[in-house]
């Protein structure tokens, strides 16, 4: 029989396998999200543009956003759109959760019996930062950190299963490593001399980006931190079963606990928008502290800058903030990363758009980082910088 998308091969040994009905349910979610994007988004775009015209907004769309939203909220098509978007997202988590729960004991056993390469360190007394504990990010019940009472890797498995659904396959398929490959391409372009001996990813979730980075720098000792114990145990087993030695630790990006001057490369991928205005400068300072002089910091974010966005894009971003539980989305797409990096002490600061890399990038390719935003899943916003060799050079 021919292979098709209908029964995808298990791309890595930890990925939960869908049975017939689960696959049909997941494909329904994808079809529903596609319908909303093609049929309902344009309706909200028209309503948004009408609201902007009625309000007579001319200068800053971003400062007018609360007024635009207040115009939309009483309108039934806007309410329908929010409800449909939310229903599709909730069905996605339900589908992924049911699939994992059916085989949870098998997945937990696969995690326990994973090859003994790499490490995972969890802290029973770890306190999840308030900005992540206050709501369940992405509407994922239990979010990154609320494990079942009997422990286990459920939250990691659910996240991994859903992540390939969420992006409709546009972030590197089931390996979900396109953002990691994009970080590598950025390092090759902006810091071609960097041969990291130690790498840290802040907010690594299931290690999907980190596996790609570890393979690009095979000589490096590669670490990842995140807030969920089950999430990290899953990430460790996922990497180990892929034959990649990664070191995971339950810790906050603001206070990681790693030594000073320790890493050559510290990065994050679509993480800063899940933090807070207070946390952002602290994370920059923590990056500076743990990097050795000459080390490089890279933060990848969504390809969207609030100051340059059209009104509909702001309303779409507003949905992420208010309903998809990413409360700092608007803050992260408005932040002045160059100023933040400068205040933290960094030099060689750059911010702009990096072309998405869909596979392991080649060294020596230039011109993929600049001011042009090619749009969702084609570009990513990246802010990067280097810790000066000495204070005198800062």
């Amino acid at each position: 029989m021919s292979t098709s998308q209908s029964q995808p091969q298990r791309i890595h040994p930890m990925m939960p396998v869908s049975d017939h009905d689960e696959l049909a349910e997941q494909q329904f979610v994808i079809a529903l999200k596609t319908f909303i994007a093609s049929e309902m988004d344009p309706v909200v775009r028209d309503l948004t543009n009408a609201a902007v015209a009625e309000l007579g907004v001319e200068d800053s769309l971003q400062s007018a956003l609360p007024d635009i939203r207040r115009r939309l909220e009483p309108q039934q098509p806007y309410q329908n759109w929010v409800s449909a978007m939310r229903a599709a997202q909730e069905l996605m988590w339900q589908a992924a959760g049911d699939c994992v729960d059916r085989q949870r004991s098998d997945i937990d056993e696969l995690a326990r019996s994973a090859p003994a390469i790499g490490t995972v360190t969890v802290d029973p007394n770890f306190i999840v930062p308030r900005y992540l504990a206050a709501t369940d990010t992405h509407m994922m019940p239990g979010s990154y950190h609320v494990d079942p009472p009997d422990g286990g890797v459920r939250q990691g498995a659910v996240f991994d299963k859903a992540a390939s659904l969420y992006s409709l396959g546009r972030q590197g398929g089931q390996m979900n490593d396109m953002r990691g490959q994009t970080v590598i391409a950025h390092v090759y372009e902006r810091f071609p001399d960097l041969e990291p001996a130690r790498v840290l990813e802040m907010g690594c979730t299931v290690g999907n980006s980190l596996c790609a980075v570890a393979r690009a720098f095979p000589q490096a000792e590669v670490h990842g931190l995140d807030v969920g114990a089950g999430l990290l145990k899953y990430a460790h087993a996922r990497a180990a079963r892929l034959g990649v030695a990664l070191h995971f630790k339950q810790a906050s990006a603001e206070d990681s606990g790693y030594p000073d001057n320790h890493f050559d490369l510290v990065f994050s991928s679509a993480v800063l928008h899940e933090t807070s205005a207070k946390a952002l400068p602290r994370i920059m300072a923590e990056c500076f502290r743990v990097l050795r002089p000459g080390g490089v910091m890279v933060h990848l974010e969504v390809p969207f800058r609030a100051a340059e966005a059209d009104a509909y894009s702001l309303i779409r971003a507003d949905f992420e903030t208010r309903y998809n539980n990413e409360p700092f989305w608007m803050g992260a797409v408005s932040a002045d990363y160059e100023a933040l990096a400068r205040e933290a002490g960094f030099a060689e600061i750059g911010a702009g758009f990096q072309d998405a890399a869909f596979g392991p990038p080649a060294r020596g390719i230039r011109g993929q980082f600049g001011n042009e935003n090619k749009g969702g899943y084609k570009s990513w916003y990246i802010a990067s910088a280097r810790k000066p060799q000495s204070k005198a050079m800062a």
Partner: protein
Amino acid sequence: MSGATVSPNAAPPMQRHRVHKGRRVVPGQDPRVDTLLGMVMALTSELAVLRERLDTHERLAAQGKVATPEAIDAFVADAATEQARAAKRKRMIEKVCRPLLADAVTAAAGVSTPKD
């Protein structure tokens, strides 16, 4: 799950992994509409699953096979089958969601029609 240590603030595990924390009401919306829309979408997903299972039954029958649960889970749709199923899913969603688009048409007409 009896005997497990649960912090006093933790919600019962089933609910904590079923309903996300921080679910907001849409200002101005009757929350019962949101609830009902969520239920209709969930029901539609069940219908989509059922129809796909029925389709698998028929395709196994056409191959002279018995549709045991194992045979159904082992069935691999070829590209033509997947294309036909995708068209059916799309049609079902468009049909169920048509009233939502009708709301939009009505609202647009209401905005552009001059008042008497």
